[in-house]
């Protein structure tokens, strides 16, 4: 048995020599290690009598490993080694656990078994530990460095150049601004205080209930009356709220006897059919009653740009035209060519029809290629038909250039998030595929964005904003066609076809003539 004191010496010896013991020229040879250890303490005149023989030393090492948690690793086990026999494979020291030895030394010096963490040190953010982006370090080679060194192009310049809108885009944006009549635009007041106070003076007072409470729908009160009531109560309102009432849109909560405020808003809001019994909250839209500034007429202009009509500045827009017909049988050749087509087909979602006629197939087989030499087509699609729509456009000879969405807003100008509007997720938007045919250089690209935000109207009725967008894209005088349109889709400058329209109205003589002769020929054959 050896005393701790003896091991102390060995620990400091090991820490002093460190890994050099396992490296060349010592190579962890145990007899060298023993000799070095004895030599190391020779000066102190404390000979190390306990390490007489090699066998003593091996014994010493094993005990040492016992207390140091096996801090020393040998090439083979010391236990079963018979050093008496001539053996070339004498065990060697191969690894020293310096950390373990340091801990051991710490304990010899009276340290506690567990190192204490300093408590005042603030916790480090994990991100601090991660490598920082090497901003200051110059790379030896990169495209940017090459460009800068050889061509004098600053980093980021190319990217900025690519991202910068082209002069053409900038100019067509400016032109669109001049040519588009500015429509009055109001913002919505988000101050709930305003809305509640205006509602209480303009809508929810007891004396306003005309014919007893519930039979009377507050939603139908004319706005002018509400504004009048607010004006009458002017004295009770702060200047700020009164002024705001004719500058911004307010949504006044309608409080009826049956309204339960804890339930929150009605999913259907102003389109709710059970307004008189529905316990959810509904709102009255109070539009500002002042004329907004800036709703100016478009400026008179007289300029010609590539793709414009020669008589652009004084030409009048064609009256709305429409043909009630079964689209499957109408010969498209009588309609002529169009710069833009919009179509909102009633997609047949139930694919598994037992009989062969599938509306999707019929739609795909329409001779759409006859309608355009070059131009754009916009196709409304939903759910499963997105895929069919993409296929259809390719089949008709278009490339899919853009995919637009219509973000549907409710009365409160919020997206629609309730009411199980889709199969897996709720649907807050609809998709519109945009196909491009030929190489129409006359398009005014990038004036609008591919996201259109607009309120919902009757079921499946799409926003009119898309007509304006098309007109800005192809020009107001270009011929434009809507397929599967209804009465509310007829519009100046557009020809609408579909089987839900009232009769026929045509003013382009050539279309008129060809349509009449087509009708005559079908009558004859019947």
């Amino acid at each position: 048995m050896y005393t701790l004191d003896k091991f102390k010496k060995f620990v400091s010896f090991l820490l002093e020599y460190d890994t050099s013991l396992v490296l060349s020229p010592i190579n962890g040879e145990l007899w060298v290690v023993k000799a070095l250890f004895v030599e190391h303490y020779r000066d102190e005149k404390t000979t190390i009598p306990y390490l007489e023989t090699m066998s003593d030393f091996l014994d010493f090492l094993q005990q040492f490993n016992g207390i140091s948690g096996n801090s020393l690793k040998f090439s083979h086990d010391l236990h079963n080694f018979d050093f008496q026999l001539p053996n070339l494979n004498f065990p060697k020291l191969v690894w020293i656990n310096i950390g373990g030895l340091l801990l051991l030394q710490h304990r010899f010096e009276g340290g506690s078994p567990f190192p204490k963490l300093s408590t005042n040190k603030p916790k480090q953010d994990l991100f601090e530990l991660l490598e920082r982006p090497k901003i200051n370090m110059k790379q030896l080679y990169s495209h940017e460095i090459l460009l800068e060194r050889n061509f004098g192009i600053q980093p980021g310049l190319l990217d900025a150049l690519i991202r910068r809108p082209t002069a053409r885009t900038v100019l067509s944006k400016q032109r669109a601004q001049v040519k588009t009549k500015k429509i009055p635009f109001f913002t919505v007041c988000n101050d709930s205080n305003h809305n509640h106070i205006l509602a209480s003076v303009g809508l929810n007072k007891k004396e306003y209930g005309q014919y007893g409470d519930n039979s009377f729908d507050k939603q139908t009160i004319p706005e002018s009356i509400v504004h009048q009531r607010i004006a009458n109560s002017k004295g009770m309102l702060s200047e700020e709220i009164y002024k705001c009432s004719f500058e911004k849109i307010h949504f006044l909560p309608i409080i009826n006897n049956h309204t339960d405020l804890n339930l929150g808003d009605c999913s259907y809001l102003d389109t709710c059919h059970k307004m008189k019994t529905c316990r959810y909250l509904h709102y009255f839209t109070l539009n500002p009653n002042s004329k907004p500034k800036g709703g100016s007429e478009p400026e008179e202009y007289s300029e010609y740009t590539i793709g414009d009509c020669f008589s652009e500045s004084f030409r009048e827009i064609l009256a709305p035209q429409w043909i009630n017909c079964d689209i499957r049988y109408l010969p498209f050749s009588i309609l002529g060519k169009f710069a833009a087509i919009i179509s909102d087909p009633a997609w047949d979602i139930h694919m598994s029809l037992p009989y062969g006629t599938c509306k999707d197939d019929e739609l795909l087989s329409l001779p759409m290629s006859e309608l355009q030499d070059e131009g754009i087509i916009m196709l409304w699609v939903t759910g499963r038909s997105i895929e069919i729509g993409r296929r259809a456009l390719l089949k008709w000879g278009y490339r899919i250039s853009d995919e637009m969405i219509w973000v549907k807003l409710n009365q409160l100008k919020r997206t629609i998030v309730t009411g199980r509007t889709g199969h897996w997720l709720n649907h807050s938007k609809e998709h519109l595929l945009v196909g491009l045919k030929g190489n129409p250089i006359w398009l005014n690209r990038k004036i609008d964005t591919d996201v259109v935000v607009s309120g919902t109207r009757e079921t499946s009725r799409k926003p009119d904003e898309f007509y304006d967008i098309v007109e800005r894209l192809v020009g107001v005088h270009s011929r434009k066609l809507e397929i599967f349109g209804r009465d509310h889709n007829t519009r100046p400058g557009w020809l609408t076809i579909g089987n839900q329209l009232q009769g026929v109205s045509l003013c382009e003589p050539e279309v008129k003539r060809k349509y009449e002769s087509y009708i005559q020929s079908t009558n004859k054959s019947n």
Partner: protein
Amino acid sequence: MYTYNKFGSRNSSSSNSNSTKSSTLQSVQSNHRIEKSSGKNTTQVELDYCNNYVHSGIPSTKYIRNVSNPVEGYPKLAKLHQLKRQQIKKHALKPYGYRVSTDRIVPTLNKWIEVYGLKFDVIMIGALIENQFILPILNSIPIYKLCSKPGFLFIWSTTQKIQELTKLLNNDNFNKKFRRSEELIFLPIDRNSPYYPGDYGSGDLESLPLFERQQWHCWMCITGTVRRSTDNHLIHCNVDTDLQIETPTSKKNANAVPEAIYRVAENFSNSNRRLHLIPSKLGYDTPIKLRPGWVIMGPDVLINNFDPVTYNEELYSKSMIKYKQTGTGGQASGGYNNVTTQFLVPQTTEIEDLRPKSPTIPAK
């Protein structure tokens, strides 16, 4: 015989000026926007955000009033979102990252599948960057082995890449096993957003977009059979919508994928094994933030702490385990005894009461 051009024939324009029906540009544009709202004796002014954009350059998304809190006004739905979030958090595995170079992704996944038998119920692929190597990766990963059945894929795409992806999803690897089920859209709030897509096109006029691009597409695909009416332990439908808009609050911490879309996936699938594969480098501007409940894999993942064995152990301790007898044939997922193990986020009765259900109860 003359041909039509895009303005119509000369003949038609001359007759037009005689036509009594014709109207001038001014009257056309001013009339159509004022809508008579039904049942009211007032005319309602509809806000025209497109017109406003042309004149002011302010994108219409700026005016949507529930961007910062999409469920505003719906306390029941807000409560449901809150409860689901708590429940998902409670059972989420710790955030795991696995850093691997792009070319090692497929071999690594193969090893996970073959050696450790790993499968995932929700697999998201890609991030909000223009050029990601999604196509080659998708083409070569053993997705049908990696994805459990039923399982859900979320694949990110730019508008340009949609058609290539469409082609791919119809190829043999997918073999129409994955049904395209929803098309999610993520919108950045404005041009200054780190998520704003650049629309370079590829330089030539033909591929130039017609419109300024603002959207990111994320396709949700489903494999296997799930029924929205009966499989409420597996999925909860109609909790979220297919449109997510960037909340303007945390601009500095742009993540590779917006939190909103992770949440859509978590709210929809009640399964606990979620993998997010980001095949390409993203750069310093869009760091990948690890997320509890997800294994995120890719060359730019900062923390590398994933180990299949630990993961499996944690999975058993954190999930509600359900054994499901799979159908005849014994092909694919079930293993030799035709039993599939489902690792689920257990649901509470409160969540069950609040969640939107199939038509038995009228919607509100």
